[in-house]
């Protein structure tokens, strides 16, 4: 549409303004509405978290008052020091970090590798096998938790961090996610590479991996968060107090000190912060990355 002097059709109700300025007032209104919508959405999404942060700075009595208190009378910053002494937060953080990093690395590597096989290599029985993978996602974990636990115990893995790593690292979810993204990469690119003499492994390394950065980044983030927040797994597999993760540690803390509401909130806030920071800093890279430029031209 050109933006030269053109009179708008009668009855449009717009000012006749020369040049590009004809578009601006409408755009600005939409933009403002968009911002408003986002602010309302952000407020709704963050409200519970706001209450958590405020409560982490209260004294215990102020947390569950009737009616609800939105701001503490005087901020008890000391809670953020006390939590390290009263609970074993450092141990929990360390364990959770080890698990999250290990599981994420393994899931992304093996998952994307397998996804390429499922997406771009044609071999008999492929689709049936893939359906089997997806099928296990449909089985609720509580159901086969016990046979799985017995299996791990017989391999002498229970009550070690390895149990959680092996448990989560070979899931079907990563394969599923990566396969869907690989399907959006056109086959012609691969055919061209094959004609050029690249092996399948070469194609995977030189073409698929660089192109799928947003998907890999998403998988990394989601796996990291899922492992970070996993509650049932550590509950069933870990016994020693020095193996506890944040979720398990928080839950035992709540059971032991169930009236220490403020500290519980402090612990909860601390458990979210690392991921929030990682996400805030990296979200643009996660989501946009270099892939879009690779597909142009």
């Amino acid at each position, binding site marked *: 549409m050109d933006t030269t002097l053109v009179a708008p059709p009668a009855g449009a109700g717009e000012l006749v303004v020369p040049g590009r300025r004809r578009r601006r007032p409408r755009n600005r209104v939409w933009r403002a509405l968009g911002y408003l919508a986002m602010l309302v959405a952000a407020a709704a999404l963050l409200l519970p978290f706001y209450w958590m942060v405020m409560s982490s700075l209260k004294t215990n009595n102020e947390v*569950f008052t009737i009616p609800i208190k939105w701001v503490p009378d005087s901020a008890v910053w000391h809670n953020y020091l006390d939590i390290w002494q009263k609970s074993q937060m450092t141990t929990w953080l360390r364990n959770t970090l080890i698990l999250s990093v290990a599981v994420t690395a393994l899931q992304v590597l093996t998952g994307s590798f397998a996804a390429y096989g499922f997406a771009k290599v044609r071999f008999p029985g492929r689709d049936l096998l893939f359906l089997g993978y997806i099928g296990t996602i449909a089985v609720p974990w509580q159901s086969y938790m016990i046979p799985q636990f017995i299996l791990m115990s*017989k391999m002498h893995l229970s009550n070690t961090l390895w149990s959680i790593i092996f448990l989560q690292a070979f899931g079907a979810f990563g394969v599923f996610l990566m396969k869907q993204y690989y399907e959006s990469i056109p086959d012609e690119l691969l055919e061209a590479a094959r004609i050029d003499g690249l092996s399948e492994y070469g194609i995977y390394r030189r073409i698929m991996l660089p192109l799928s950065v947003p998907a890999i980044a998403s998988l990394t983030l989601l796996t990291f968060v899922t492992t970070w927040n996993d509650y049932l797994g550590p509950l069933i597999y870990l016994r020693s107090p020095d193996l506890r993760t944040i979720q398990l540690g928080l839950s035992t803390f709540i059971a032991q000190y169930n009236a220490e509401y403020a500290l519980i909130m402090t612990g909860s806030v601390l458990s979210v912060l690392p991921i929030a920071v990682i996400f805030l800093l990296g979200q643009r890279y996660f989501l946009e990355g270099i892939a879009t430029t690779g597909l142009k031209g």
Partner: protein
Amino acid sequence: MKRSIPTVIGLAAAASLLAAGCGGGSSSDSDSASGPVTLTLAGWSLSTTPEFKTLADGFHATHPDVTVEVKEYDAANYDTQITADLAAGSAPDIYAQKTLKNLYTYATGGQLMDVSDVAKKLGNSVGGLDAYQVDGKTYAIPYRQDSWVLFYNKELFDKAKVAYPDGSWTWDDYVTAAKQLTDGLKAAGSKAVGTYQHVWQSTVQGFALAQTPGAKLTSGDFSYLKPYYERSLDLQNAGAQPSLGTATTNKLTYQAQFGKQQAAMLPMGTWYIATLLAQRESGDADKFDWGIAPAPQFDKSTTGTSNTPVTFGDPTGFGINTAIKKSKISAAKEFLAYAAGPEGAKALAGIGITPADTAAVTDTFFALDGMPTDELSKFAFAKHDTKPENPVSKYTAGLQNILNDAHTAILSGSKSIDSALGEAQNRAKNEVLNQ
């Protein structure tokens, strides 16, 4: 076709291990003869539940060649974790029975040793032994027997100008007092209410089952619950007691409600005594004049200090894992006997725990700092006919589940008492009792 699931899994595991090139199979344990023995004991929340360490250390003092190593489990999910470990064969030698209703499963599943010989040697004053019997054999030995009593705040009673409980109360007297307290406290400018009944199903159902003559859980007839729920709803509607909805969503804790003087009365188990004493010291509870009275009774026939009040409570005991090494069995049995006997009882009373043998320790118990000194409190602690909340049977776990749903339905106002109990009775008949 009988198949042991662990065997099936073991075969599968062996196959996969073989494929992975590792060696499988466990080495057989050699029977060690005499010499120092280490027993493993499963407990929970060690830093706030000192009873396990106390018993472990006390036993070691009298049996120097036996060390008891306490393994910590998660208090809120103890049974889930123990079940998982037992299924995998890695549970400790001795494990505490935290919830009575699971005893049946452990016993019939072959996870508890028959300890009837230990039970025979214990005196009559050890309460709760019958609760651990299945088919005439005893499978665990109680080391503590809590009962439900009525805690009350003397200072709030004074403020509201209501007479203290004197041991002669029935439930109607209790309701009247709660309402009087609420009105009196409001007039005196206090925000406290008359009573706090915690959200658990046991708060209402435990009393109903124990006190109603002829009431039987496994009969599937739950009409004995009706008068008790009518009273609870009455208290909620009168504002003398926070509603179940408020208590659940605001996560009210009974320790804070009574300890911080938000309620003048609290029906609760005697385990709360140790917590209250500790919290008074740490400042998590206020320091005020308090006492315990016998629980309100069904009718006048069991009230008064010349009768024995009827109340409920489940024992907590230790059981021996059937997978224990043969050479350790006698040491384990001695530990069980110690924990239930007079020495164990004294050690427990010293930290404020209600042992299974209360007669031996009333004086020790009441000599603790912060305990009430009046005669009624001592009477309430020492004399009671305590019936189990969870009578042992294979239906108990399923029935309690159904009754818990009825409990939340009634007290949240979602269903009337008659329709909730009627539905519970139907479900009991169709889902549990026909198995």
